[in-house]
């Protein structure tokens, strides 16, 4: 995806923030975390072996939510584990902030299953209407990685199941923790 394309996506996404995002920020006065989740990444994530580890030199001091520009320039990093279901998900880092973007994933919902919620922000691309209507494709989340963390977040997709063709089904589970007996944080996306 070109830089121009990303900028267009930023504009479209910001316009839809009212119903496409939810967050629990550290500082309400800071830029909305979901504003960061606006650059559409490429569909295929890079092999983990080619990326820097997400926890390399991660700062321990607290910083504000990154801006959209910071996210645009953020490098893709490798989580501790990434499963086949998350092969289309990219992970980015700015300071201690992590953004996981699953741009091609039909996303029904994103839910905190447990743990830290401070700083969490979720984003679901809106479905398109009209002739080219399609299900919401693209889910993202942003959260800080800080000592003492533990969080489990789930992305559900749509598929045939017990509630018909639009049953919410498991897609991805993100688990992040940095307990105080751990030298470095762990981030798994399976």
């Amino acid at each position, binding site marked *: 995806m070109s830089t121009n394309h990303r900028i267009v996506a930023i504009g479209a996404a910001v316009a839809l923030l009212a*119903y496409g*995002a*939810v*967050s*629990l920020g550290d500082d309400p006065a800071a830029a909305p975390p979901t504003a960061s989740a606006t650059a559409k990444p490429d569909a295929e994530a890079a092999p983990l072996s080619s990326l820097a580890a997400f926890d390399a030199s991660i700062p321990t001091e607290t910083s504000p939510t990154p801006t959209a520009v910071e996210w645009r320039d953020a490098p893709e990093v490798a989580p*501790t*584990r*990434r*499963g*086949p279901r998350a092969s289309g998900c990219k992970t980015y880092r700015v300071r201690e902030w992590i953004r996981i973007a699953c741009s091609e994933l039909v*996303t*029904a*919902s*994103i*839910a*905190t*299953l*447990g*743990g*830290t*919620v401070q700083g*969490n922000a*979720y*984003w*679901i691309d*809106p*479905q398109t209407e009209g002739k080219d209507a399609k*299900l*919401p494709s693209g889910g993202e989340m942003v959260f800080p990685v800080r000592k003492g963390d*533990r*969080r*489990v977040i*789930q992305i*559900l997709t*749509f598929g045939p199941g*017990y*509630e*018909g063709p*639009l049953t*919410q*089904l*498991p897609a991805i*589970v993100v*688990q992040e*923790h940095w*307990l105080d*007996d751990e030298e470095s944080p*762990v981030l*798994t996306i*399976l």
Partner: protein
Amino acid sequence: MKRCGHTARSARRLTSTAWLVTACSVLVAVSQASACGDGADLGPAPSSVAASSSAISSPATTSSPVTLQAPARALEAPLTGGLVARFPGTESIVIADEDHRALRIASDASTVDSAGGFATVQLPGPPANVVAWNDTILVTVRDPGLLVKLRVEGGSVREVGKTPLPPDAWGLAVSKDGKRAVVTSAYANKVAAVDIDAMTADGSTGPVWIADTTREPRGVVIAADGKTAWISHIVGSRLTKLDGVDTSAATVSRVDLAASALRAPSGKSLSAALGYALALSPDGKRLFAPRHALGAMGREAWFGAATVDVLRTDTASGIAPLHQGNALMLRSSIAKETETPDTLANLPAEPLAPFTQPRDIRYRTTTRTLLVAGEGDNVVAELDALALDPTLSVMRTYKIGSDVDPNLGTARSGGAPSGIALSEDERFAYVFCRSTYDFVRIPLSTDPLSAEPPAPIQTVRIDTDPLSEDAAKGRRLFYDATDRITSGGLACAGCHPEGRDDGHVWHEASFDTPDGGTRANFVGTYENVPDLAKTKGFPRRTAWLVGRVDAQGPYGWRAESATLGDRIQAGMGLHRWGGLPAHEPANVAARSAYLTIFLRKGLVPPARSTTAELGPLERRGKEVFGDATAACASCHKAETSFTDRVAHPLAALPLVRGFDDEPKQAFKTPSLAFVGNRGPYFHDGSATSLERLIDNNKDRMGKTTHLSEADRAALVAYLKTL
């Protein structure tokens, strides 16, 4: 001595590099029915042998030559027992085959391809857990309670030591220095430490210390420093921690570990069952506890969920966060439009049972993963050991059950995987399946997340079922959770482990299900019942089966089932979500018939330390029990296993929170067999101990208010001998 055909063949497979051990020199006669599996029903094992050296009647014996690869090194880590143990530094393994009362030893588990590759060591009783290193094998024996030490020495296997232990010796771990063993005794609720070097051939040296625990201690692990041990239980979610394991008197404490924290109803802690095993991470910082979370939430979660709960050892606290019902969530607009009351978007949507009835666990260091044996669904699941909740991060599943019985739906090969050992390079898992007596070798992927298809597994039938063919079918049904007619995803053994009980009080609730109609089903907690049903269900405590199912009938809480078979069939309808799938009545009848045979022939009552002679207190209690005024024996008739099998109307017990009030209060007199160690009591579990039950009876059953405190204590003491 008559030698089994397959073990005779094993002699031809010895290699020149192997350490040949000709154990025949120490042989005594071996039961052919037991050693060779000729199909004869053995019946229940002796129910009780005192845990004293005088009760140790026969040493371990071998029925065939044994070979081991040469031992390579001293211990590098503590050893955790299981049904399968590998000699570190080699591919030699030993298997504890409880039903044949034997150890099975393979010189090279990486290549063994026939039953002849296993040698058999007959034991003085049924083994439970085994560990092995260098030239030493340690094995727990359930009845009589023993720790037996075998030595592979000078070309033979010798029993070189044994230590009498509280009966039903089960779990086993050995400290890194090889000096101390910690053993759990399941039915006795004890844990003991044994000085391995001090074990004597005549069993004259007892444990260093014995400590009390709560019900059914099973798995045990020892920390690398040898000072701390952890114990799992098949009843309850708490673990037991032992400090000062290396001293002369350990300190016992209880540790809370929430079961399936992310699936618990908000603000609630779930009970657990099936805590057969534990595993420590190599750095000792994390303790992994596979078990069954009773009442865990999820779609159609009648039985709860399989879980691996992770404990942080330095703080003795679980690392998984608790479920938050109102935590941050974002739904797409389509999700909002299409969701129904059944949508559970803020609960884990992953399967409730990526494995069913966890039975063993091993930490795979090279991949930082966990291998869990699913006894009920015949799989070995590989989970992420780095996750807060490994159950939500299943990386690969190895299906080992096969040759499915077309009539019963159970696996006839690879059934009930119950023990795992890893090869030295961790490229293979060696598994023992206890309902089909198979050894299974699983090639493990070096990258469990890779898309490469799993390599074929190899299965070797070690022996045949020691029971009749019909009982063997019942055994497979008892363990197998995959047959949708017998139950809805959880086998008999899931709630009645070894025919005992999980200590849980279920909710018998009637509600609508998608397959149509309103039916009564069991659920783990009232939060599992759909909100629209507006019911919490009636309390039904899991029944203890073993040793209490010989009577013709009737069965059921209200004596509503004329026979045991009828009761099993009723259970098939209750133990699921919704109704029985389409079936022919004969299929249900056949299953209950096979299960009836197995429950009566195959379940083994727990070993107990009872003796023929009652002590003074117990004798007094027996007098009170038989006294006409107290009238205990008028319903709990001794000649019929302490029950008259009649449903008597009784005064209602106070309503237990979380259940519905029950208009009908007539319950069948329960048998008092094994009543001493199967609390809590009553259909609602409201009496947590026999002492409380008697103290709070208030003449509800018989007459006890006139009894002195001493007589009440005597009565309880007597009840504990039954």
